């Protein structure tokens, strides 16, 4: 599990083989999200949507998971009245016209992990569209401040402030440890890949080992609002997932941010892939 400490310019598109591996699986995951989203129709349940994601990815060779696919419909996209983590798991909530939905999955493919979040809505939902459009500012803010090497906790608070200014509630606060991001890494492929509460055992092991090392060196693989995140960005791959909520509608994106120890700000941090559905959507909106 060698950490990604060197990477060449993303702009030139010359990624190392390792980063290419991560990018491939991230693209696969987004392709899965788009394929499943296209099949969603009224009456389908969260469980069915989660199963569709699982099957789609299994057919394409995914055998292990960072976490099993999630699907949230309606006001569950904003985690309304979530008290215990079990509520994250898919339920029998049925999709209705106009409802927002979020598909969140983290497949491991050929040893590379991705963790993505895809927000959409069935038909027209202006609130959802607005939330999704407003996420763009967060993507830019996070990259800028990571490049400035600001402590992760401060960046978290700045994202929080931007959300409040926009009139939204911070919903990633509902995630375990309130994380806006967490580290992901390569995973050894085993014949047997058990999961624990929806999380892959191998990935959890990696996260725990990172947490242990980080604890000794003063950093954490979890990017949270708490003091254990009061350190500059740690080189590696971070799955960043800002999640906005607004009166029963939620929207997020989740994708990999590459942090390196390069001195050049452009290379010190960059989004692994700029050809993702939400980014394309913003570009199309600007062009229109």
């Amino acid at each position: 599990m060698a950490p990604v400490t060197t990477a060449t310019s993303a702009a030139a598109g010359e990624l190392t083989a390792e980063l290419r591996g991560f990018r491939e699986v991230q693209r696969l995951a987004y392709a899965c999200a788009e394929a499943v989203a296209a099949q969603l129709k009224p009456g389908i349940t969260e469980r069915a949507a989660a199963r569709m994601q699982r099957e789609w990815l299994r057919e394409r060779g995914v055998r292990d998971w960072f976490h099993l696919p999630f699907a949230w419909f309606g006001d569950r996209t904003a985690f309304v009245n979530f008290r215990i983590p079990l509520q994250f798991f898919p339920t029998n909530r049925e999709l209705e016209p106009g409802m927002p939905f979020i598909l969140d999955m983290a497949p491991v493919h050929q040893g590379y992990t991705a963790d993505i979040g895809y927000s959409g809505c069935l038909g027209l939902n202006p609130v959802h569209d607005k939330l999704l459009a407003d996420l763009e500012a967060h993507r830019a803010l996070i990259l800028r401040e990571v490049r400035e090497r600001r402590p992760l906790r401060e960046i978290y608070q700045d994202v929080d402030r931007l959300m409040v200014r926009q009139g939204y509630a911070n919903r990633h606060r509902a995630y375990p440890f309130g994380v806006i991001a967490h580290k992901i890494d390569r995973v050894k492929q085993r014949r047997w890949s058990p999961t624990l509460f929806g999380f892959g055992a191998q990935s959890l092991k990696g996260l725990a080992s990172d947490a242990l090392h980080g604890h000794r060196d003063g950093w954490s693989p979890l990017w949270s609002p708490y003091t254990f995140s009061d350190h500059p960005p740690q080189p590696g791959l971070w799955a960043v997932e800002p999640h906005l909520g607004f009166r029963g509608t939620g929207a997020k994106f989740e994708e990999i941010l590459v942090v390196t120890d390069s001195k050049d700000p452009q290379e010190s941090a960059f989004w692994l892939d700029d050809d993702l559905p939400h980014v394309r959507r913003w570009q199309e909106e600007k062009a229109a």
Partner: protein
Amino acid sequence: MKTGRGRDAAAGRGKEPGRTQGGAQGRGSGRGPGLEGATERWVHTGGVELCVAELGDPAHPTVVLMHGYPDSKEVWSEVARGLADRFHVVLYDVRGCGRSTAPRPLRGGFTLEKLTDDFLAVADAVSPDRPVHVVGHDWGSVQAWEFATVRRTEGRIASFTSMSGPSLDHFGHWIKKRMVRPTPRRAAQLLNQGAKSWYVYMLHTPVLPELAWKGPLGKRWPGILQRVEKVPAGDYPTASLPTDAAHGAWLYRDNVLARLRRPRADAYAHCPVQLITPTGDAFLSQRLYDDLEQWAPQLVRRTLPAKHWVPRTRPDQLVSWITEFVTAKEEGDPAKQIAARGPYADRFGGQLVLVTGAASGIGRATAFAFAEAGARVIAVDRDADGAARTAELARLVGAPQAWPEVVDVADEAAMEKLADKVDAEYGPVDVLVNNAGIGLSGSFLQTTTDDWKKVLDVNLWGVIHGCRIFGRRMADRGQGGHIVNTASAAAFQPSKMLPAYSTSKAAVLMLSECLRAELAGQGIGVSAICPGLVNTAITGTARFAGVSAEEEKRRQAKAARMYGLRNYPPEKVADAILRAVVRNQAVVPVTPEARGAHLLSRFAPRALRALARIEPRL
């Protein structure tokens, strides 16, 4: 067809069939009678002549206004005037009332079947090729329920707006259901409505009601209406009241017992129905309409804090709701159907709500909550971007319209200007939320005069200006309204840390209570909301007196963190504000700590005084 022209001479009004004239005679000049500019015509049907008045362009959709008991069509004068520029408004005196003639004999002449004949005759005369929109109040609504549920009017009614008049058939089923299985709740509902219907029993006694109406009751009635029902004085009721009321008694005698005993089983509405329920109706329980969805599938519910005579006391609100409903049905565009779905959409739909301090925190959440209930929202704040953002999002969550206004509430002239602009461009304000406030912490001796001025200017003077300027307009309009002032738990919880802030909020609390007493008679409610620690931006911008700028920043951050850990969302305060308006609550502590402090302030004030000495470490 003119056999029944022998009318009582009491009203003594000469008339010529077919004559066209403006207004009814015999009333004072000045603003003139409400039906000024109306064209009149006479419709002959079933042995009576009906006096029909029309306003507005006949090319527009036709709205027929049905009056109740003991009224004549003039009860609608204000509403008709408001509707006339958008619709072809038709009013007629029900047989035996106003200037229409009475059937002979009276007994058996007022059955719902005959009233339906009258309606069809009028509808055919005023709008032969298009269905009409019916609006009924009291007995007008009782009749109109009959129109809306019998076969022969199918296709003649485009929509029906009902207020204070249930279908007798539905009423009959309602009673039956409660008699057959009288659970305690059902029995209580039955007794409650039974007590409210006292006048129905009186009207069933022979002769006495007629004598009373033609005698002392008829004379005193206008005074009673003003005193008890808060109906404004003016050109209503008309001089024909004694005969209207005497003849109208037959509405009850001819229909009530018969229908309640054997209610029709097929009384399903064949047109969309809007139900407007006045919450203070002394004659009808709100519970009567509990099962109405079963009879009227496309039901839109509205509630109005008012007494029985809403056409007189709340004409503006009725005009707005009727216009919205009729327009939606005329356009038939499902996307434009009444969209708000918040918990209080029936109460706030289409109302104008002004919120100060709406760029963040409680103000912003309140603006959104009202927007979700379908209200039109004005977001007022010093922060232009924040206010604009609030207005933009308010439109997204359901406000038909929302506007940002950049005003400093402490600036009296600016507030006056705002009020003028609001009146001219958006209309009269229905709900005012004085929420803008700033924080100030620090010991009394370290608080400078300047600090005091700043905090009182916004927290107290802002509220005073809001209440004075907008409250005056509300009172002048005389159609009710509500004022909400955001005080604080600090208003009853003393603290050595917050002398200036607590003083300003205590003043707001007392101001609200005094104002509540003053405006109660005019149907304007005043509520003081007292939140405890709520996670908003006020901590980050609060001033800390007597410390360096650096220390102030540190304390702001610390306070913000503390409030963040407490994490009580402003959305819950907003919900409490809407609830306070709906229930007209006087003082509403929000958050457990505020409720606790409120309780202690009454039963154990010494405990609060002990708490006041504690200095939290910031």
